[in-house]
Each structure stands twice: as C-alpha cells, then as structure tokens.
C-alpha cells in the first residue's frame, strides 16, 4: 500500500508512486529530498530590470521599450521620431539586434544624442529578445545624465520580447497593417503587454485586403486598454500623436 498524502488542491489519495503531476509535499519515490522553490522563472531578470528602472529614475530619464515583428517599421518610425524630437529632446537609442548594426547605421545622424548597439548573439545562438541584463550593459554605455528619453528598440519578434521586463516605463508596439487581422490572437502576450499599439503603414490600406475594423476589435478583445495610434512612418501621418505619447 502506498501512503496517504495531500495534494495542493486539497484532495487526498493513496497509491504507490509513479504519477508525475501534482504536489506531493515532502514525499518522493526516489529516496531523494524534495525542496520547495516557488520562484518565478523571470525573477533574476526582474531583479535586474528593477535596478535598471532605478538607474533611469535617478537620472530622470523615461525609457520606452519598442517592440514589433521584423519589418513592421520600428526603425523607420524611430528615424522619424528622432527627426521630429531630436532638436527639442535629448534622446538616447539602445538598439537591440541579433548580429548587426544595420538599424543603428540607418539611424545615424537622425537626431539622437547618443546611441548604443546591443548584439544579442553573445548568448546561446543569438537571443531573440533583449533581457534586463543586456539592457543594463547598453544603458551603462549611454550618458543617462545628459538624456531625457531612452528608446529601447527590441529585437524584431512577436513572442519573446514581451516576456522580459527590462526596466522600461512603458512598452509600445509597432504593428503593420500588412501583418493580418488575426495577430492579436496569435501573439496575445505581446499585444497585452503594449500600452500603445502603433498601427503602421496605414498609407498602404487602399492596396490591401486588410480589415482595420476587424483588427481593432481583435486587439480590443486581447487588450481592452491599449491606446491605438494609426500612423505611417513613411508619410509621417500619425507621427505627431506618437511623439506626444512617447515624450510622456
């Protein structure tokens, strides 16, 4: 006969061991010792994110984590933003990129006070996101005391960046109308994490089958609180509204 034991949900049963699921407090089938951990998987990342956040606050710098899929237009929007705001605000850019500095090169001379590139390929095979440790390294290369705003351009990816807090004040997402209406349901974490969703490439709407109304209701279902800014980084439409949100 096995021993009676209590599960976390309050049920109690008796069996020889063998099942793999559930909480078997203090009871193991291997003669080993069970230790409770109950630690958030991202706890270490979050500790560093809190430190980044403190460093930014001490320097009086607002930081925005800009995320999107590859090719949605983060860099083009950022270039426009720097042109608009560069003369009135001291903006630092932290460019996350898997292996190149192409995005940073594109932004060269656009109006940033300072720029640093964090290549994520130092990790295992090239990380698909920026984590708090990478951002800490990037921030240490920026003159925070001379900046008002830091834009963190994350790696183009709709899955991983949303999981990792980096110490930002807000997460913003660029989403292109070429991506399809159903994406909020496929990438709910990203769409839920974003305070603002810039619906980009709006100038292409006449040429697409994209149903904007349907996308907006899908977005609302996943994240009812998201602010939507319709924009075209190419023509400049909506960029004013984006800039006014960005500057807080």
């Amino acid at each position: 006969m096995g021993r009676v034991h209590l599960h976390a949900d309050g049920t109690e049963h008796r069996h020889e061991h063998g099942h793999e699921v559930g909480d078997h407090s203090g009871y193991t089938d291997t003669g080993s010792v069970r230790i409770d951990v109950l630690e958030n998987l991202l706890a270490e990342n979050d500790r560093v994110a809190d430190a980044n956040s403190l460093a930014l606050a001490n320097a009086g710098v607002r930081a925005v984590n800009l995320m999107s899929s590859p090719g949605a237009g983060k860099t083009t929007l950022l270039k426009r933003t720097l042109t608009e705001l560069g003369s009135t605000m001291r903006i630092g850019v932290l460019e996350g990129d898997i292996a190149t500095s192409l995005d940073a090169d594109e932004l060269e001379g656009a109006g940033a006070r300072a720029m640093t590139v964090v290549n994520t390929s130092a990790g295992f095979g090239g990380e698909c996101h920026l984590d708090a440790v990478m951002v800490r390294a990037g921030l240490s290369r920026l003159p925070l005391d001379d900046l008002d705003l830091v834009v963190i351009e994350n790696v183009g990816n709709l899955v991983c960046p949303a999981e990792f807090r980096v110490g930002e004040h807000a997460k913003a997402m660029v989403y292109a109308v070429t991506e399809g209406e159903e994406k909020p349901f496929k990438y709910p974490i990203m769409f839920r994490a974003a305070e603002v969703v810039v619906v980009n490439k709006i100038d292409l709407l006449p040429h697409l089958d994209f149903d904007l109304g349907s996308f907006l209701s899908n977005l609302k279902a996943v994240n009812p609180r998201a602010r939507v800014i319709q924009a075209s980084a190419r023509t400049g439409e909506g960029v004013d509204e984006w800039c006014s949100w960005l500057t807080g």
Partner: protein
Amino acid sequence: MVHELSLCDAILATAIKRADGRTATRVTVRVGHLRQVVPDALQFSWELLTDSSDLKGCELVIEQIPARVECRDCKAKTTLAMPILMCGACDSFEVDLLSGDELLVVSMEVTEA
C-alpha cells in the same frame, strides 16, 4: 523555439542555485496556458541545456495550468479556450484572471552528493 531555450536557461540557473551542490533528479515547473510555451519545445530545450551541465539526466516535469477568469458582471468562473480575456458565460470583458499566467519553478528533488 529560442523562447523556450531562454526560459530553460532561467530554470537551469534557478535549479543549480537551489541544488547548492546536491544532485538534482527532478525539477517541476508550472506554466500557464497564456504563456505561449510549447511543452515539447521546453522539454527538448531542457535536454539540450542540461546535457552539458551539472544537471545532466535531471527530469523536467511541466505542470500546465489552464487560463481561468472570473466575471465581474455575472460572477461566473470559466476556462478560456482562446487567449481572449472574456467571460465564457456572458461574453463580458470585465473579467479578472484567476490562473493561466504562471511561470515558475515549483519544486525540486535532490539527493545528497
């Protein structure tokens, strides 16, 4: 896939720290359905990463937690079939998440070295 690899890296770091030199034979993690984690990919990543670590051969147990919400309007508690935060009884969006966003290392089994 790389997503699960990153998460496994975090599991491994936590497990090595908590094992504190003892041999870990099993690590149990709890993952909510809203987390976009593919269990098979997590399992594969685990084997890949532990193989060259102190935790070689250590088993990973994944507890999957359904996403459940409680409606503020009709008070019903329902399980989500899709990642849409909506009441399954009355379709209201005024819901509080009860479970489904978990991402933690629950426990480990270790033997004294």
